[in-house]
């Protein structure tokens, strides 16, 4: 069907006007948030030392190892707060933490914050971080406009939430901490936190909204109370979502606010399934989290609005328990509306963040200080580091290899996002030197700075040398013009299993928009989209377009990248354009 312009306009107008949202109300919400931001504006300008990229990368390694080694039951479950709070410990329900407060916390003793849940009002921006053979890369950055001082955020569950707003994070280990993104927090009608009755009443509406609600909700359970255990039958058949279902034998409820708190730590009684007090908020706890009865306060929950009614499923209106949010008192922060100033950032270095002796960096050298690239040209930047002291190179285990990071100054570049590249260091035989090679393309236009070196000493201790603190280390300026741009389109989309799918797209000059003919485009699926993957190749025609057909055999990830000579563009994790473009084919198992 070919729609003419008028019909297209009519349909788009209908979509635009069909909404029932009261935009005046939306404006009021915006203005209230603007007022909150305005109150904290001066704070954001304070210079506070944040976790360095190097430390963040080190934490990545720790996380990867931990995830690989620990069985799920031993992995710290949601909400394992380091301390318990008094029933009246006040979280400032109307004020989430500021980014500055988060910096202060992460710059301090983060051991006590391990696994803590924090609610912070921040701006998240996509951070393009390329990691070689690492399972987890930083996905977002906080306050990325200051490239020397971002907090890097990991998104292990692909929460996929980025922008300006109130977010919940879980603090993970590392000497300076790092944060995992849990999701976005939706404020209640009277402030950040919801009362139990408010949220209980709102859940059916959220469910009726017929949409996947990505928001988390902070529940003011300061006066409530009892955690009541109910049995969750073990039933064969379709398994429930591990996030939502009765994965363990216990389901916990937070009872009605009107009930008096239970002061005993004794195990609560097992009652009938779903035999909850009237009007209580039900919190199935998929992660076997067993909140003590003294752990009152503010709890982060995600409503089960997606859950279809089924046998043994949590009841409608239930919410999954994510974790307990620490109060300002527990965090050592004043509960006043205006946060206190933080410590000034260190200005000298380099410094090792690990205790005791370890390898130190004597010299860092770049093979060149600048390069000019156009079109498909590429050039290699070789970074050579001279260590003193022993550095271990584990060999095949690249997750443990010494690494080096480059970060591009986002100002004045084609891509305004902060971009970080991490590469493993290879020892130069017979020397104390190691090197890493970064292949640069015209899309890498901008100034790149060394921002981390990670090395492991002979005792197996991870030692991070943070060149950010040193200053004056080498930079390289890449002048890139006319980078190729690659698009990818799938038709049909989504597809059904067995259906032929056409993968098509165009290669153009990003600066001029002109189509580029004769460009070899590689197309691959799933695992072959990873670094070093190979794919089928097609060549663009005079219009710069390419076309390739394949049959869908399962839910596929399709990617394409430019593979041309003399330049070789390879797919690179978290670098999706224009080197590689990814799209999902959604295979419909119910299809023919």
């Amino acid at each position, binding site marked *: *069907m*070919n*729609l*003419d*312009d008028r*019909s297209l*306009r*009519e*349909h*788009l*107008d*209908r*979509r*635009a*006007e*069909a*909404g*029932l*949202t009261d*935009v*005046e109300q*939306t*404006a009021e*919400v*915006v*203005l209230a948030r*603007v007022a909150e*931001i*305005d109150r904290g*504006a001066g704070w954001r300008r304070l210079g506070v030392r944040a976790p360095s990229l190097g430390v963040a990368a080190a934490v990545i390694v720790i996380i990867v190892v931990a995830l690989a080694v620990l069985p799920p039951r031993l992995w710290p479950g949601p909400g394992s707060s380091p301390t318990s709070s008094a029933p009246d410990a006040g979280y400032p329900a109307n004020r989430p933490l500021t980014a500055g407060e988060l910096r202060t916390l992460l710059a301090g003793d983060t051991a006590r914050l391990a696994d803590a849940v924090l609610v912070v009002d921040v*701006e998240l921006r996509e951070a393009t971080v390329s990691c070689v053979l690492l399972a987890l890369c930083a996905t977002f950055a906080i306050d990325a*406009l200051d490239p020397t001082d971002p907090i890097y955020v990991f998104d292990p569950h692909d*929460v*996929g*939430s*980025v*922008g*300006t*707003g109130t977010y919940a994070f879980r603090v993970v280990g590392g000497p300076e901490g790092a944060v995992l993104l849990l999701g*976005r927090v939706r404020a209640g009608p009277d402030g950040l936190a919801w009362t139990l009755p408010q949220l209980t009443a709102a859940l059916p509406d959220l469910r009726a909204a017929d*949409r*996947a*609600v*990505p928001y988390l909700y902070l529940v003011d359970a300061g006066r409530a109370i009892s955690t009541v255990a109910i049995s969750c039958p073990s039933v064969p058949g379709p398994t429930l979502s591990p996030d939502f279902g009765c994965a363990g034998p216990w389901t916990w409820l937070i009872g009605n606010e009107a009930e008096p708190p239970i002061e005993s730590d004794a195990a609560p009684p097992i009652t009938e399934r779903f035999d909850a007090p009237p009007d209580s908020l039900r919190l199935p706890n998929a992660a076997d989290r067993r909140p003590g009865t003294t752990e009152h306060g503010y709890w982060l929950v995600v409503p089960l609005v*997606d859950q279809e009614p089924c046998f043994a499923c949590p009841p409608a209106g239930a919410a999954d328990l994510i974790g307990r949010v620490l109060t300002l008192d527990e965090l050592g922060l004043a509960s006043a509306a205006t946060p206190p100033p933080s410590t000034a950032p260190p200005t000298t270095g380099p410094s090792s963040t690990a205790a005791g002796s370890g390898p130190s960096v004597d010299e860092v050298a770049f093979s060149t200080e600048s390069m000019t690239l156009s079109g498909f040209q590429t050039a290699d930047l070789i970074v050579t580091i001279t260590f003193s002291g022993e550095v271990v190179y584990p060999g095949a285990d690249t997750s443990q290899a010494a690494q080096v990071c480059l970060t591009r100054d986002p100002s004045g570049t084609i891509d305004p996002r902060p971009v970080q590249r991490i590469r493993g260091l290879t020892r130069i035989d017979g020397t104390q030197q190691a090197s890493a090679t970064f292949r640069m393309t015209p899309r890498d236009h901008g100034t790149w700075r060394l921002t981390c070196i990670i090395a492991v000493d002979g005792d197996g201790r991870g030692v991070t040398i943070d060149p950010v603190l040193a200053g004056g280390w080498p930079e390289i300026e890449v002048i890139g013009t006319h980078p190729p741009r690659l*698009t990818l*389109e799938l*038709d*049909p*989309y*989504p597809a*059904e299993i067995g259906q032929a799918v056409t993968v098509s797209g*165009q290669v153009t000059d*990003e600066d*001029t*928009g002109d*189509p580029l003919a004769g460009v070899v485009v590689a197309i691959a699926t799933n695992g072959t989209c990873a670094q070093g993957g190979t794919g089928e190749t097609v060549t663009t025609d005079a219009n710069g377009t390419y076309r390739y057909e394949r049959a869908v055999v399962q839910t596929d990830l399709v990617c394409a990248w430019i593979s041309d000579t003399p330049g070789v563009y390879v797919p690179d994790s978290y670098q999706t354009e224009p080197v590689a473009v990814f*799209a999902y084919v*959604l295979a419909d198992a119910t*299809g023919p």
Partner: protein
Amino acid sequence: MEGPLERELVEQARRGDRAAYEQIVRRKVETVYRTARAILGNDADADDATQEALIGAWRRIGSLRDPGRFDAWLGRITVNACRMALRRRRGPALVTLGGSDSGHELAETQRPGFEHRAVTADAFDRAFDRLPLEQRAILVLHHRDELPVAEVAARLGIPEGTVKSRLSAARAALDRSLAREGLR
């Protein structure tokens, strides 16, 4: 925006005048919401995107170099907010295949040479929602908001030539998507 009065409001907002920005929000919220609603197709996501765009604009307004380009700048933020709203959805938005008319309002194609087949609102929405956000945005900006190619290019941050090729590709993709609804 671009009028002298509104330009002055932007100038004041850039200097941190929250009252000025409040006036801007009240003037722009409807436009931002309608654009987001057309791109995203549902109230909740459009509301989220609108809030995110207007709050984000306040945070970054100090970086706006040319107050006269506020509308283009805000439009770019709006499209980005729509992209993020889509990303926030858990899992893919499932689209029922095959199409079913459910009594929604109809619009008819009038293109000569083609059979007059009704494109129901449901069918159009399903077809439109299958398009990538970039294609939805470019169609909305050009065909609904009636922005010229140069202005669309400014709002999307891409060259004009790219806008033209993407517009063409988006129309073709929409036609193919409509065909999947049995409307060929």
